[in-house]
């Protein structure tokens, strides 16, 4: 051979030997070492930091945008969450001791039975039985990662773990823990759904009744049972829960497969967009109104309550009212673009869906000076806003709130008109931002300048006004709501006055 390829040939043979080497036993050994001699937390953090650094460099070098984005967050927070999870999983490896068995019960004529075919959790068939248990007999899983911070906080405060009832209170946000928000796990909302539909996806319990999956659902059932907000029928739906239970032959690997499958693997379920939900609610509302076209305001409130209950939106009518208003504005937006701008109906619908949350803001402020009021006072202004919304030229929904200042500010309006004509969306968004800033600034100046003169003019007018204009029903009389506003304003003025009678100290 003319070319000396010995060294490369040797490398090839070494690589070929390495590639084809069976290392199953080595991998098992590594896993065993990992469980028996885990790295200390600091060591694990240092290693993970190095791995993330190398992976970030690798992603950048390869131009792998997806990987780079996934690793671009706060490294310390990521490492902390991952190492916390590692410790939790380590605890799950502990062998289970002998445990009492929670017997499944028949309910409504349905006898406990094996689930056939056996469900598969993370590529593993796990035998389970289906049946009913009383909600109160199920033990919440106190190693649930969701509760990690709360449980550690509780242990630090009380020097012990929480009892079953305390765990329930933590889940429901009823146990005050500094920093924890109320109903963080959104149990109330889930309870409203369960009260209407029952528990649709069976929680999974171990042989002793410990929950492996379904902490939120079972907590919501407890809430229904203990709250006066729910009636007897709804409580009955929550008293017994249909569950899947592992058999006494279940191995630790079965338990882990259930937990891995349900906590690590996404289920790809996607909620309906709010646009779709709101349209369903609106259609139901319209159908009810069609049957009772003469319903007065009290009856309408009652109808809205029925709609709210039907769609599991809670006992009050707030969500239904909000949805109805948003859909009505979205309809107006769609009609404008289809009829006046002759755009494709479905293109317009896609836009309405994409920017549906903006209609919530556009519907706020019906009184003088509010956003909705300003739009309804000036049709060209409303159309300008709809054009900007269609083109995605509002950088965020906060800009909608500034529209009430923009409406009467010619300079700001000029910015918005220029934004409508601008083809580059980024530049258009900057123009809208500038217009909103200009209007806000002008408003701030307007509010702080010439206060004394304004008050003098107003007080002179008020003191000279004839008494009859304050009498209800008289021609040119002051409207009651304006009188109320004046009264509130004067009370506010009173709070600014110095108690000694002079206003020297008024800031």
């Amino acid at each position, binding site marked *: *051979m003319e*070319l000396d*390829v*010995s*060294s*490369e*040939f040797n*490398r*090839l*043979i*070494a690589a*070929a*030997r*390495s*590639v*084809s*080497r*069976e*290392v199953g*036993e*080595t*991998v*098992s050994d*590594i*896993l*065993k*070492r*990992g*469980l028996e*001699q885990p*790295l200390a937390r600091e060591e*694990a953090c240092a*290693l*993970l930091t*190095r*791995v*993330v*650094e190398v*992976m970030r*460099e*690798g992603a950048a070098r*390869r131009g*792998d945008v997806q*990987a780079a984005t*996934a*690793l671009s967050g706060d490294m310390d927070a*990521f490492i902390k969450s991952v190492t916390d*999870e590692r410790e939790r*999983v380590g605890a*799950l*490896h502990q062998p289970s001791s002998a445990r009492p068995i929670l017997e499944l019960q028949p309910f409504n004529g349905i006898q406990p039975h094996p689930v056939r075919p056996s469900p598969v959790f*993370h*590529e*593993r068939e796990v035998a389970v039985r289906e049946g009913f248990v009383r909600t109160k007999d199920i033990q919440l899983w106190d190693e649930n990662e969701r509760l990690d911070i709360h449980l550690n906080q509780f242990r630090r405060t009380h020097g012990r773990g929480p009892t079953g009832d305390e765990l329930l209170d933590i889940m429901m946000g009823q146990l005050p823990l500094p920093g924890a928000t109320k109903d963080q796990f959104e149990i109330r909302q889930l309870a409203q759904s369960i009260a209407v539909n029952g528990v649709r996806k069976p929680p999974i319990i171990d042989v002793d009744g410990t929950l492996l999956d379904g902490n939120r659902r079972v907590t919501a059932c407890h809430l229904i049972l203990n709250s006066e907000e729910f009636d007897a029928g709804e409580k009955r739906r929550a008293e017994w829960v249909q569950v899947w239970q592992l058999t006494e032959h279940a*191995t630790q*690997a079965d338990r*882990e*497969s259930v937990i891995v499958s349900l906590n*690590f*693997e996404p289920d790809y379920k996607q909620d309906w967009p709010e646009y779709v939900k709101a349209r369903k609610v609106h259609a139901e509302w319209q159908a009810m109104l069609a049957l009772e076209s003469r319903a007065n305001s009290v009856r309408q409130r009652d109808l809205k309550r029925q709609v709210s209950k039907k769609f599991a939106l809670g006992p009050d009518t707030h969500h239904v009212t909000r949805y109805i208003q948003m859909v009505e504005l979205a309809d107006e937006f769609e009609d404008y673009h289809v009829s006046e701008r002759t755009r494709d109906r479905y293109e317009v619908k896609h836009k309405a869906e994409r920017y549906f949350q903006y209609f919530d803001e556009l519907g706020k402020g019906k009184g003088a000076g509010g956003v909705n009021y300003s739009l309804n006072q000036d049709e060209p202004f409303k159309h300008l806003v709809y054009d900007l919304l269609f083109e995605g030229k509002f950088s965020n929904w906060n800009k909608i709130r500034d529209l009430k200042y923009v409406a009467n500010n010619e300079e700001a309006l000029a910015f918005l008109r220029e934004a409508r004509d601008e083809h580059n969306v980024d530049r258009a968004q900057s123009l809208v931002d500038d217009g909103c800033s200009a209007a806000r600034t002008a408003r701030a100046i307007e509010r702080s300048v010439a206060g004394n003169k304004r008050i003098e003019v107003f007080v002179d007018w008020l003191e000279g006004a004839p008494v009859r204009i304050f009498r209800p029903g008289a021609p040119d009389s002051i409207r009651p709501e304006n009188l109320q506003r004046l009264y509130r304003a004067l009370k506010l003025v009173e709070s600014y006055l110095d108690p000694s009678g002079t206003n020297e100290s008024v800031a």
Partner: protein
Amino acid sequence: MADTADLREESRDGKSTAEAFLEVARQAAAAGRPDRMLAALVASRYLDGLTRRLENDWRGRLPRSEIEDCVAIAVDGAYDAVAHGRLVRNLGAWIWKVASNKAIDRWTDDYQLRAVMESDTLSDSRADPEIDSDSAQRLAEYRAKEASRVARLLLPRIGQGQIVDVMTMVIDAVEQGLEDLSPSAIGETLALSASAVRSLLSRGFERLEREARREGITLPEAVPGIVRDDDSEDCEEL
């Protein structure tokens, strides 16, 4: 080899928890989610065990920082391979092979450097300053291709049928940059048992090296200090 009876006891009817997490990690990588892959890898404690194993194998020769680098490079390489659709059947095996090969490379480079320093002379094989890095890269690629070509030329001389099929598959795997193609994986493709593939591999490598020597290719010099303790587990005596 450490006793793995406990793990096998727990997973006698299927995968162990840790193996399940390794599979989750592989799926996360396939979905382009390196963050989830890392979370599952850490949860499996595989990185703990890998670090401990490498520390044990390379005690006194590679510092901890070098071990961590090897692990990090292996994890990154495994992510890249899975995310870009390469055949990775066993993520743990892939990471182990890359990490242990990296450790060998680092030690070898270090050994060569020390050898040079001790002899106080520059080896002819070291980079020629006249040759820029691009040229060096092209030369290395050319040599690698030439080595593969030579190996393929020699394959008909080692036998016929299955032995050639198995060795061809392994050389293909190296050329494609695969890090792990176990005998069982080869067996599945060629409808052979894993033990038959192991025998064919053992015989194939032996005959390929014999034919290479006949063509004047010199055998590798052993680098003192490297112990490949898992070589013996795979190659059956014929």
